[in-house]
């Protein structure tokens, strides 16, 4: 199958997908409620779209295309309210978080849909272990070359997004010591990791995709589980490293950060990305997953070490003019607060420490998801 032509998009437009957990309010375990939830949700027009995911205890929502943080956040809040209301009618809790803190993957049930059943048959236990919940942010690009430029220019900022969104410290009842353990589950898939270093769309298509397709390993871009991947049919790049945050407001703020950062990168003040930037990529990515904001990055050009927190704070300052132009200074302030006060993973650990039983971690996540945090 040939790669789709790159459909040009309006530069810098945003779209967000969130994978959310469905839990039973009784024991706080995951519950295969997506068929009942979807059956109820189709009764009314839903803001954005809602679709089943591979396991029945997961539901995915996607926003429309947005120019600004404000409208994106507003739509996400509407969707959140619709989901929470539907969940209340069906005794189903909806929440964020990159992993469920104590679910057992053997219990998971695969949604009946041919693609999911095929994937499940191929990957076996990985599919069920893949019961992890991520936020994907789409950013519109004018053309394929721009998409690849941004994809590679973003490589040194990937740890920022991991650390800011990290919300998966617990797996199967224990503290993994990772802020984002979810990304470890994704790394098990053969086509995960990063995109090959090719800067022109034409080269990407002929020198990489067509040859991969020829091997028979892949049929479409959907088969790649890269941290950032181009999505030619939408005309976007898709950032896939974020855990689903505990609130939709935070999800919107993270998207706004990507928007402002890309606007900054497109000013092309920094030197162009080179392949050697990736020498430190997996190290930095690990630091972000393991230590979150406390992680220590190695700068790909200067080899200087700096904590992710400081690097985020410095970058937030650098992109302020872009955010001002885009009307998203409020989102940046929210992220600054996260960088200083701690991410969702820290909050979940605090809940565990203060409230004892692991079930209370889920109770905290449920509470955080339904209540509106003030948007600045």
């Amino acid at each position, binding site marked *: 199958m040939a790669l789709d032509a790159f459909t040009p998009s309006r530069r810098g437009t945003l779209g967000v997908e969130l994978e959310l957990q469905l839990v*039973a*309010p*009784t*024991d706080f*375990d995951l*519950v*295969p*409620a997506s*068929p*009942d939830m979807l*059956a*109820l949700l189709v009764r009314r027009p839903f803001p954005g779209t809602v679709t089943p995911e591979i396991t029945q205890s997961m539901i995915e929502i996607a926003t429309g295309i947005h120019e600004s943080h404000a409208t994106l956040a507003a739509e996400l809040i509407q969707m959140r309210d619709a989901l929470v209301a*539907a969940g*209340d*009618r*069906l*005794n189903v809790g909806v929440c964020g978080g990159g992993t469920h803190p104590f679910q057992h993957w053997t*219990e998971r*049930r695969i949604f009946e849909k041919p693609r999911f059943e095929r994937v499940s048959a191929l990957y076996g236990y990985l599919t069920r272990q893949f019961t992890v919940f991520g936020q994907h942010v789409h950013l519109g690009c004018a053309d394929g070359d721009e998409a690849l430029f941004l994809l590679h220019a973003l490589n040194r900022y990937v740890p920022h997004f991991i650390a800011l969104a990290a919300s998966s410290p617990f797996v199967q009842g224990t503290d993994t010591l990772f802020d984002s353990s979810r990304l470890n589950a994704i790394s098990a898939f053969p086509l995960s990791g990063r995109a090959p270093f090719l800067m022109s769309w034409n080269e990407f298509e002929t020198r990489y995709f067509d040859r991969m397709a020829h091997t028979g390993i892949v049929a479409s871009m959907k088969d790649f589980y890269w941290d950032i991947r181009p999505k030619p049919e939408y005309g976007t790049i898709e950032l896939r490293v974020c855990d689903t945050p505990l609130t939709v407001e935070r999800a919107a703020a993270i998207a706004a950060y990507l928007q402002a950062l890309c606007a900054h990168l497109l000013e092309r003040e920094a030197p162009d990305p080179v392949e050697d930037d990736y020498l430190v990529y997996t190290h930095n990515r690990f630091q972000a997953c393991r230590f979150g904001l406390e992680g220590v990055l190695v700068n790909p050009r200067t080899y200087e070490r700096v904590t992710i927190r400081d690097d985020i704070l410095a970058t937030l300052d650098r992109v302020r003019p872009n955010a001002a132009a885009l009307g998203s200074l409020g989102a940046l302030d929210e992220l600054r607060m996260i960088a200083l006060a701690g991410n969702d993973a820290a909050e979940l650990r605090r809940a565990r420490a203060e409230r*004892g*039983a692991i*079930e*209370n971690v889920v*109770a905290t996540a449920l509470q955080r998801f339904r209540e509106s945090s003030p948007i600045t």
Partner: protein
Amino acid sequence: MTFSTELIAEIAWPLALLVAWLAGEMAFRWLNLPRIAVYAMTGFALAPTQLGFLPAGTSGPALLLANIAFGLILFEAGYRINLRWLRANPWIAVTSVVEAGLSFAVVYIVASVAGLASTAALLLAALAMATSPATILRVVNEQRSAGQVTERLLHLSVLNCVLSVLAFKIVVGLAVFHTSGSLLHAVRGSAFVLAASAMAGAVAGIALSALLRHLEPAQRDNTLAFAITVITIVALTHVLQLSPVVAALTFGLATRHRRSFFGRSQRGFGALGDILAVLLFVFVAATLDWRHVVAGLGTGLAVIGVRQLAKIASVGAFSYVSGISLRKGLLVGLGTAPVSAFVVLMLEQTRHLGVHLVDDLAPLAALALLLEILGPVIVRRTLVAAREVARAPEA
């Protein structure tokens, strides 16, 4: 021969449990029958009035153990009730009241037409309101089912049990004891029993949760603490002539809402719960006399029919407004069939008060036996039809 008769009497119950367990496993593997349906058949066959393998006279350790088994199941059922859901979706409670009320009405009419005395008809109608949480919960746990049909079956069974206990106590107070002849008086008496039982359960739940938190805040497995408390509550309410059903339910409810956790791995109280379940379902069927079953078969079948129709129609009618499809609503109505463990233990408790209702209520024996065997099969079929049973085969 006295020696061997005594010996048999001594080991009759353990042997009966062994036979029931074996039969249950074989039928589950080869005939794909729910285990508890087979326990019931075994119990009925071995009953004093049938093969006579089990000793006559039900009061004693077996009754106490059956009550404890039922108490453990009710605790778990209560634990799975979410009061916040009932507030957020009031149609669940409306469904329950209509469904139980209509069941009462139609069963009373059928029983009266069939020639039962008005007291007997009222008692039968009151008991027919209930759905036994025992069968529902055992099948749900056995099949690991989850979804709206499962969730609603559990909630409806708990709600209509409470309504049934209320109605039953009113009828007993009013018609059997002729306490004062006044309905108000009977209602007040019945409400008092319910309130006192609920209070006992709630106090136990709150106190135990506080204690557990104090002892070991992060303790994962509270099974032992819950089991011992259930046993105590059942024995206590039994002695005080309160309702063990309501007390065990509220204990579960209070425990859940005080955030003491009863995790999925503890479901059904493990091996303890399993062995007591064998005993419960054998015991319940063993109280039934084939002569009553035969005598009451016609009316019993009619009662089963109209009761089921009433439940299916009521739940179906409110399915859309309560947030599920008509199909799932009808399935929930169908799944409310089981009644036996609840009915028999209620009656045994009344026998303890000196009233022999089972003997006067032949149709009830037929109803209890048929639904004890068919109930689990119906519930399982319902859950499978609703696609709420995990497809992965049980290891």
